[in-house]
């Protein structure tokens, strides 16, 4: 199996996730797009672990999974708090500062 298979798939997922972060207005949808980006990165790490024969890449993929779990927990708690205060989670209505 070619290494570029995994790497190109991860690049496509990463680009789709970046598009989602830019295009989406709903905060929960932006968090989902960030999950796509994180998964693309850990797919790369696992592919490189297979390529080099060392398991270090898999160790880091597990770290990425743990960090993503923490990030989603805190992110959704923040979204809930914003929704409770403003009755909306549209990100373009969140600007407090002028300019």
């Amino acid at each position, binding site marked *: 199996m070619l290494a570029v298979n995994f790497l190109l798939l991860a690049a496509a997922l990463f680009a789709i996730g970046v598009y989602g972060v830019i295009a989406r207005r709903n905060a929960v*949808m932006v968090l*989902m797009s960030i999950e796509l980006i994180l998964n693309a990165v850990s797919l790369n790490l696992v592919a490189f*672990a297979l*390529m080099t024969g060392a398991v270090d890449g898999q*160790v880091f993929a597990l770290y990425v999974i743990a960090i993503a779990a923490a990030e989603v927990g805190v992110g959704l708690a923040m979204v809930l708090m914003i929704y409770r205060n403003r009755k909306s989670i549209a990100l373009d209505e969140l600007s407090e500062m002028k300019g």
Partner: protein
Amino acid sequence: MSAVILAADDVNVAQNVGFGIIAAIMIFAALKVVTTKNVVHAALWLVVVLSGIAAQYILAAAEFVAISQVLVYIGAVMVLFLFGIMLTRAQIGKESDLNNKGWALGIPVGLVLFGLLAWVILDAFGDDILPDSGPTPTVSLSDQFLSIYLVPFLAISFVLLAAAIGAIVLARKD
């Protein structure tokens, strides 16, 4: 170039076919995640992408990471997402204002990013063939975790604890 390598003896054809099918499903589902008009449908399409990633981990001989992916992402993170959607949304069904006003800017950014990444990847790893290895024993992973990666392992435990406490403090009504 690729066709020649595909015809070589040391490339597993069944593995490539499986990879291609799963990758096509994953990219279709990822596009649905960022384009669908229904938030709940986006979460369910994200389940398809995450399952595909777990299948790719198994193809890449990383069983333990695949199992962790299923447990943590599909089991825990998706439940969190569905709760987040249910607690923050008023209407069920299609929404018309899910995208920003400048959403079209994302298309060229995504295309240029993918083009650059694909160019660099093909330039650097165009001919590299992954070795046909068996499943990675979990013992070797745990050896790494408990020897040279022990300090990051402890640090990430504190990060998870801090995130759990922080989420409770942020989300509770007082």
